[in-house]
């Protein structure tokens, strides 16, 4: 098996602490060509310049033969890695031979006088690229194609094991394009050179690359063989083109007419080759409306548009609807946009009414069409309006900013209401959850990531494949944002990608599919970390934990509690509980939480082993109230083992 010569681990690359492209984890083996493709400005050159040590990584690191590149002395690095960037050079009165000779820099003495051996290598390299006839010509008067061949000879004369090339064939005619790439292919095959380069020519990239890395929207979108990566829909999305502009038959890109109208919220994700538009949550709408109304109240005019940066980091800017203001109050609405995720609240108007109050604080209340919490176990205590914690924080922040702007120091009351909320709520899970009278104002990131089932499964597969391609045999699976947060808080994963060692893959509700794929890809150890409300379903062998599929959470708690000796009254109470958190609470009061968890965990182990016999799968369950709720024996062992090996 070829060993990796170059590895980047969660590299965030950019200029002056501004990240252009984040979370770059790549592994380059000897004898391989890795090609970065993506639109202009996506960060291809930034990655290459960071690898070549021209830019310092903002976080993460690049390793040469396992050694941090930043720690390798310049001269030693120059003997292993050579780079060629697009900056044009105009050396005066320098012959092509002298340009190539400049590549021998790391090997010559203090005055840079080349030895016999150096001169021989210079001639050999000139011959290798077929530029021996140019040796005595001045570099300046060569054509662009000849210049590029000579510069390539220059980096080859450096005798590196890794070549870093930025668009090595741009501006060359087809003959030189092919010539340059043929030379690279030959060197890679015959001398075990490793090449990482950026190319704009997709057709050539397809022919020459062993591994293609597709870059867009500030991150790596796909890694794989060109055949795997280059499908029409994906490339069109990557380059932001009309869907049919990339024709795989011709490997060419045709320009179609520009998209007729751009949507109001033009942010996209690529999910399994499909380009889906993002939306924003009811929470974001409420915060935006509150901000608009607060500004009208405190500053006297309606803003033309309101903007906020969601916790996900994506800014949302909207115009206000249904504005109304009077003595001591202002109210307005913001229309929810779920992007390509069509749910019941899509298009609904979320209103906020802002009034001054005496308390000096920002108070948030739920009005018409906002549900009330009637059962314990939810994000909010019983009796509260169903406006979750994150949206509350967003509203406070948005209103606080308006107050700061106006220099207003008194209190404000924000009442969120949705006129059609009560009717909409009938189509949601709210009645079952014990939220009565309206919809909930939710969202932990402020952004809706739309996902069709197939797209979701594809995305999970892709993330797993990517982790496998980086040489991992361990992976952490987590259903969603809550899991990520828990992992981060407990130091098992980190959002600042630099310290992450074991890849974390979000598997949504598709736990069974994710395990199958992980087993297929040859992973050895899998840690499943998730909220108890999701993972308790595994005890019943339910491997798709979406509530549309099956629920059974309280039933499982009830059954295992009965086995642990609970009486009928307690069982009834458990069966009627709204959520898993509530069940846990009830069990804790009855002193049965220990045995019940143990019994549940035993079944979870059984089902996990049955689903993926080739994996060592541990499950870690937590509750958002009390933290860790329990873990299987395997999980304990894995954590022990991983802690030991990553420190």
């Amino acid at each position, binding site marked *: 098996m070829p060993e990796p010569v170059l590895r980047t681990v969660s590299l965030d690359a950019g200029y002056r602490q501004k990240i252009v492209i984040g979370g770059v984890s790549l592994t380059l083996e000897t004898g391989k060509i890795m090609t970065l493709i993506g639109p202009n400005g996506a960060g291809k050159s930034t990655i290459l310049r960071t690898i*070549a040590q*021209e830019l310092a990584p903002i976080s993460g690191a690049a390793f040469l033969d396992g050694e941090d590149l930043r720690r390798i002395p310049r*001269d030693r690095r*120059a003997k292993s890695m050579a780079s*060629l960037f697009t900056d044009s050079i105009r050396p005066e009165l320098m012959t092509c031979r002298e*340009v190539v000779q*400049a590549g021998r820099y790391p090997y010559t003495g203090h*005055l*840079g006088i080349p030895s016999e051996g150096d001169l021989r290598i210079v001639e050999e390299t000139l011959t290798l690229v077929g530029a021996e006839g140019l040796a005595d010509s001045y570099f*300046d008067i060569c054509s662009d194609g000849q210049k590029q061949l000579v510069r390539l000879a220059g980096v080859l004369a450096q005798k590196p094991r890794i070549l870093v090339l930025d668009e090595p064939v741009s501006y060359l005619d087809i003959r030189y394009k092919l010539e340059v790439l043929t030379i690279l292919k030959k060197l890679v095959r015959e001398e075990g050179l490793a090449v990482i380069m950026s190319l704009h020519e997709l057709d050539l990239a397809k022919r020459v690359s062993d591994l293609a890395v597709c870059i867009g929207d500030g991150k790596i979108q796909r890694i794989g063989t060109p055949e795997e990566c280059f499908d029409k829909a994906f490339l069109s999305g990557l380059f932001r083109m009309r869907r049919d502009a990339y024709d795989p038959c011709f490997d060419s890109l045709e320009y179609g007419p520009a998209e007729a109208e751009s949507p109001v919220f033009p942010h996209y994700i690529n999910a399994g080759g499909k380009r889906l538009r993002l939306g924003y949550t009811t929470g974001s709408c409420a915060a935006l409306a509150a901000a608009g109304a607060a500004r009208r109240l405190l500053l006297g005019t309606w803003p033309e548009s309101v903007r906020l940066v969601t916790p996900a980091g994506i800014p949302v800017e909207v115009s206000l609807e249904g504005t109304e203001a009077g003595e001591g109050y202002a109210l307005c609405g913001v229309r929810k946009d779920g992007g390509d995720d069509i749910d019941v609240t899509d298009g609904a108007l979320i209103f906020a009414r802002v009034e001054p109050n005496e308390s000096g604080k920002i108070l948030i209340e739920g009005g018409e069409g906002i549900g009330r919490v009637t059962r314990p176990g939810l994000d909010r205590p019983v009796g509260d309006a169903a406006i979750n914690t994150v949206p509350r924080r967003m509203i406070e922040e948005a209103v606080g900013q308006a107050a700061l702007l106006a220099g207003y120091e008194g209190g404000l009351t924000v009442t969120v209401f949705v006129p059609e909320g009560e009717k909409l709520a009938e189509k949601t899970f709210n009645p079952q959850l014990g939220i009565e009278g309206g919809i909930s104002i939710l969202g932990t990131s402020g952004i809706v990531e739309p996902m069709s089932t197939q797209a979701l499964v594809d995305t999970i597969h892709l993330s797993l494949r990517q982790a496998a391609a980086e040489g991992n045999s361990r992976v952490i699976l987590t259903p969603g944002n809550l899991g990520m947060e828990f992992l981060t808080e407990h130091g098992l994963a980190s959002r600042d990608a630099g310290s992450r060692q074991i890849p974390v893959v979000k598997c949504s509700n598709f736990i069974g599919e994710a395990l199958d794929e992980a087993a297929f890809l040859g992973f050895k150890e899998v840690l499943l970390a998730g909220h108890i409300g999701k993972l308790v379903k595994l005890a019943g062998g339910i491997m798709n934990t979406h509530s549309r599929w099956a629920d059974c959470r309280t039933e499982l708690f009830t059954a295992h509690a009965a086995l642990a000796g609970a009486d009928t009254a307690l069982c009834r109470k458990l069966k009627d509980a709204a959520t898993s958190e509530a069940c846990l609470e009830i069990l804790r009061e009855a002193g049965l939480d220990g045995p019940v968890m143990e019994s549940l965990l035993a079944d979870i182990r059984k089902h996990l082993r049955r689903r993926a016999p080739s994996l060592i799968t541990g499950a870690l369950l937590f509750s958002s109230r009390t933290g860790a709720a329990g873990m299987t024996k395997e999980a304990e062992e894995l954590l022990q083992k991983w802690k030991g090996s990553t420190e």
Partner: protein
Amino acid sequence: MSRKHFGAAFGLLLFLIPVFLLLNVCSGSVHIPMAEIRQALMGASGTSADIVRGIRLPRALAALLLGGALGLSGYLLQSFFHNPIAGPFILGISSGAKLFVALVLVSALSLSLPPASWTLIGAAFAGALLSMGFILLMARFVNGMSVLIIGGVMIGYICSAITDLVVTFAADADIVNLHNWSRGSFSGITWQNVAVMACVILPVLAVTFLISKPLSAYLLGESHAAGVGVNLRLFRILLVLLSSLLAACVTAFAGPVSFVGVAVPHLVKRLLRTNQPLAMIPACFFGGGLFCLASDLLARTLFAPSELAISAVTAVLGGPVVIAVLLRRKGGGRYA
């Protein structure tokens, strides 16, 4: 370019330098017969010997050393900015040095203290670094050789204006002296001055020669230099310090001398038919020295007994070279 060609080019430079040294010593406002000059150089005493040994010889050596410093400084600056018309005078570095030297001179003279050579060099170095700082700051924000040059010329004008102001308010007795100096002249150089400038310029020349390897990598672009393992930061700092020190030294002793720094590297480059630092560094030094020797000879003899400002001659000789370079660049950069 063959080894033979190299040898011929260096041979020509090294032959012409003693010739011009001798010519400079022989000619001047006072006619001194050849025989007396020979005697003076052999160590005889008398008025002629005093003129030859006390005035003409140090002046000629100063022209050689300071001219060499200017040529070298110009080459370093052209390499540093990748700009063929950069030079210590055009970029305003000489003018910055001039301003600081004028300030020190005027304050020293008003306190009736004789200013020491080292103090003047120090002041000139500070002024040169200040101008260089401005230019570097500009280079960060604007790209393009003409903008950089215009900025340099502006800094030069501003510094010159302030220098004139300072000179205007100097005591009457000093004005003649200061005025001459601020126009640029090799006159009035003493042996002690020559010793001091040799102590500064020759070590700088040696250090510059030792960085010819990273300089050659730098000529192929910063990206290339970084790629082959040059410590760019350190190298840039060194380049700025060396070129400023050279320009400062010239200004401290001879005032601003224009166009030598820009023109000499181009003339030498044509002569050698290469831009390799290993050859260019010594060649620019010798070439600059020769250029200044010849210019000083013309300045002293053309309208003898009155003497021209050295810049008047160097500008006439060097200016066309710069124009030729600009035209050539425009014309596609082909070299004959």
